[in-house]
């Protein structure tokens, strides 16, 4: 099992600057060609005034703390037995090119069910104005009991 003392361990703050081409690349990779993700001229005539990132782009700017957790040399999760079990994103505002996102995260929970161990990461991403833009919750499952 994973030692429960790691509940509350924090990661970050981590800064991520949003790139215009990266927004387009992520949307294209997820088969989404809608113009508000790609076309600056189109987006000028929407309420956003510029292209916005696909909400699921939070997987890039809002889960880097989860990546640190997976590689955390104190917790030492057994990556060979680990799967991403569940994911939740909640969005509070849109993201545009050149936004600077700051993510902070923590180990929100650790628990067991049978021979499965669960570790939950929660992250909060704020923009350059300090406004919360996304909250993320990732649940990882480790077969055979964890670390």
């Amino acid at each position, binding site marked *: 099992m994973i030692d429960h003392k790691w509940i509350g361990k924090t990661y970050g703050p981590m800064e991520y600057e949003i790139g215009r081409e990266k927004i387009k690349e992520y949307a294209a990779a997820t088969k989404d060609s809608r113009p508000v993700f790609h076309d600056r001229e189109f987006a000028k005539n929407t309420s956003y005034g510029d292209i916005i990132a696909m*909400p699921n782009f939070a997987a890039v700017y809002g889960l880097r703390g989860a990546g640190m957790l997976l590689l955390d040399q104190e917790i030492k999760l057994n990556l060979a037995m680990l799967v991403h079990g569940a994911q939740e994103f909640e969005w509070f505002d849109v993201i545009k090119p050149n936004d600077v996102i700051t993510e902070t995260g923590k180990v929100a929970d650790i628990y067991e069910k049978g021979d499965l161990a669960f570790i939950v990461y929660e992250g909060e991403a704020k923009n350059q104005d300090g406004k919360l833009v996304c909250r993320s919750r990732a649940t990882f499952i480790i077969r055979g009991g964890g670390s």
Partner: protein
Amino acid sequence: MTELCELKYDEIEVGQEIPTFSHKFDRMDAIIYAGAGGDFNPIHVNPFFAKEVAMLPDVIAHGLFQMALMGKTVMDWIGDPGYLKKLSCQFRGMTIPEETVNFKGKVREKLEDNLLVLDVWAEKDDGTVVLKGGEAKVYLP
């Protein structure tokens, strides 16, 4: 000004299904997603590693890739990406190349303040569940 959403909260009924989006997974999808999303875990991109080391039938789709397609399915319905407020799901079945996944949603509940909750899920042609127990919260004008 271009309005992206053509739906109206008042016209939506509980139980209403949203259009299904179907995608046939190609091994290039995983390579391209790895670059865009930053997850180069070899189980997604290296068939030798997937089969011989991880003992999988082949490379498998990224969970977050499939979740993004789920998000796209909801956004195709609501039109305005900014109206997607929340999305969650459990990652269940594995998807290997040439398998088709169908992304689905259904209105579960109408909340106050013009918010709706949808059940969302994804399953393969043979009915195997890929994304389970998903929920989307959306705003409609």
